[in-house]
């Protein structure tokens, strides 16, 4: 395997996947300011790695190709298509007709004894 399925570098830098080079750079410097190497060396490493994956065009193409599109993971119930009909309330008639159906199947079973 010559690629890695690591963290999403766009999320690490807090930018959109369509972000321009300038936007990526800007986001990187902002992040570095928040997580300087002195204060948060691990955080800085992560941010630096994310930036390296997106700063060069070839690296970004490679990153994009092997990046899972998991935007749909954030979808909520309001985005669902609504089904119009509501469940029918259970009526006496329904129960009666269903019970008769059961009784008829039971009778059919018993009819086998007459075969």
């Amino acid at each position, binding site marked *: *395997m*010559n*690629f890695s*399925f690591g963290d999403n570098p766009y999320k690490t830098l807090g930018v959109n996947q369509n972000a321009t080079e300038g936007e990526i750079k800007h986001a990187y410097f902002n992040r570095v300011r928040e997580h300087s190497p002195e204060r948060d060396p691990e955080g800085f490493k992560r941010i630096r790695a994310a930036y390296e994956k997106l700063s060069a*065009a*070839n690296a*970004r*193409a*490679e990153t*994009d*190709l*092997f990046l*899972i*599109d*998991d*935007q*749909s*993971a*954030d*979808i*909520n*119930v309001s*985005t*669902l*298509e*609504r*089904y119009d*009909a*509501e*469940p*029918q309330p*259970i009526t*006496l008639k*329904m*129960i*009666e*007709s*269903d*019970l*008769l*159906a*059961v*009784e*008829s*199947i*039971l*009778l*059919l*079973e*018993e*009819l*086998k004894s*007459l*075969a």
Partner: protein
Amino acid sequence: MTKKNKKAAPAGKIQPADLVKRAEEALRFKRYDEAIQWLLRAEVEVQRQESKNGNRVTADAGADELPTWVRVLLADAFFVRALTVSDLHQRISDLEEAVKRDASDGRYPLALGVVHVAVGEAGKAVEHLRRAGELLPDNRIAERAWVLGSLASGNTREVKDWFKQQPQEKLDANLHRLRAVRELTLGNPDAAAALLACPSQAVAGSSVSDGASRQSGAVGVLREVNREATVYDRLVCGLVSLAAGDQEQALKRLAELPRRRENVSPAERVAFAMHLFYRGASYFQAKHFAEAATDFAEAHRLAQSLELKLSWLGRLVPYYHRAAEELFATDINQSIECWKLVLEIDAKDKAARANLDVARRTEAGRAWHDGRYERAAELWQESLKHHPLDETLLKNAAIGCEKTGHQDQAVTHWRRLVHLWRPQLKSRRDDEQFKKQFLRAEKHLIDLMLEIGTPIEDVQKEIDAALKITPDNKELRRLSVEIYLGRGRPQQALKQLESLERIEGESVELLLLKGVTLGMLNRMKASRQVIERAYEMEPTNLAAQRGYLLVLGEESSEAHDKDQLEVAAKLCEQQLKIDPRYRPALSHLACLSFHLNDPDKARETIARIIELDPTKAENHVVAGSLYLEHDKTREAEAEFKKALALNPDADSYRRIGESYLDARKVKKALQNFDRAAATGSFETLMEIAETLHDADRDRDAERFIDLAIIKDPEHPLPHLIKASLHVNRSEIKKASEELAAVERLGAGKAELREFVDEARSLRKMLQQMNELERRLKSVEDMPGPGRMPPELLRLLKQLR
């Protein structure tokens, strides 16, 4: 049968009586379809003969009854088949056939009426059930069926009168349930509950009527019923509470689902399924959506297994939709299952399809994020079945499959994706990022295809297709060169190399590759020029240096062969200027110096070889070999001794043996080979055998091959070599035996496939040899004027 009739029957036609016998035989073994086929044929035949003979089939004794017997038997066959098929409409059709043929048997209208009730056609049932009642007076099943039909068609008053007339002891559990259903029909759920003696009488607000309490004796009957009845009783009890509007009690009763046994009857399964449906509905009302969805799904599965059109199945869809929506945030997998089930009921349900797609993608994304890669890949692949051209899904599925080790599937998805992307390249020519991604994807696909062992022809086709779209894809062109060279197709490789040169200009790497390719095409001069150019372009480049040293070495050898010894020596000096430690050049120069009568220079050069690393046995063997070649036996043996002192292993003995063999001192060579064989590995033994074979000493070689077989009895290589030695000596039978050993040892082992393939091609050759031999023999033996001229015969023998 009359003699006349027998004669009249066309050849191959079976008489009705025989058809009936066959049908009876089929019925005995419960092959109802077959029995019906025979009887239908018999029926047609009987009708044909009746019309021909004026309604008389035959004049045989007892044959008068045959038409009636055919009809009766056919009616019975339809009846028994109707009771076994699961499709209710098929049942109706069979029972109608039965009724049509035998109107005197009450079982047929009885069954037909009941099936009509089961499919909700109560109107059609009434007449059949009335007729059944007439034909089967005092039959308990017929009576129950009549009550059922009457209730289904709304004749509750008649049913009430009938119940009034029945003696108490006649009212069994089955009739009590029907009576309870009647009470429900009349809107008296409490009375129904009382009739059934449900586990708790405390139905909210219920007041058991006097009429109902009078039935307590009958309740005893219900309690006494066998275990099979339990499922119906519990169901009816639960539904009675539901009908009474007591959700809590209904849920409590329905929650007590009886334990399901194996091999339950269809009727029990119907009751179970309905029980689950109503329990699900009760859970739903109580907002227990997960439990509701589970019950609905199980009810659904059970109903499907029955292939019965149950009325509540149609009511499931809105329940599934609402449950799925409610569960989306907390249990998305259950939502997925709900929408899947909706689509099983109605494949055209757009909302279910759209929401299922969203849910699958959402869950796949979450699964990926949580490290549940298998699940993510599974869901993306499921979605792909419905959206095969969705690029995002293809990419996600490809990555998911790769991550979970399903490389074959990953290749399928990557391949589809690049095939979708290829035509887009033109319209998106300004999208640099897309182009880069596309090129990377193409390369990745090819790498993966190679990794999983896709047939190289397919890989090549994929590369060619990609290069048509992106001729400037340097990576793929390089890969193509490698593949063509690997497949022994230097001409195509050269074409790719020239294209590469046009795209990226001349480079050391390309020139070296071109040199190798030209060498494979036997264009030696051009090859040398190209490699020399590579060296001139970058003399410090190690690969170019190595290539140029080889070229000079070849030129030097050629000069040596032409007896241009001084030219050859100069070329060696040129090699040593590039690399003073280049041992092949030192060896050759030492050899040339002996030939040029300059033993001092030869000795000095040999000393340089040893100085390369005096502790390395191999250098002393090379030195000894050079002395031996020029009859300096004493010096040679001294060097061999030093080599063995430094490293007395099998490899040293083998090399010394080779030196003696080169100097045609066979006895000494074999002595050293034997010493090497005493401790040598399988590989050493095979190398010795190869050396001896090259020196035309096949018999000696065979001895070492046999030792190799003892060393590794499972390896097919020694057998393959032995087979080829036998072929050379025309020992067909022995060769065949060795080839069989190769095939046996290599069978089912991928890593040994090349040996098996080789053995097969050798066997094919053997067969061709045999055929040629046979034909030659027939030509030789040909008598008379057709005989072959003696010159041609001689030629054929030579060919042989």
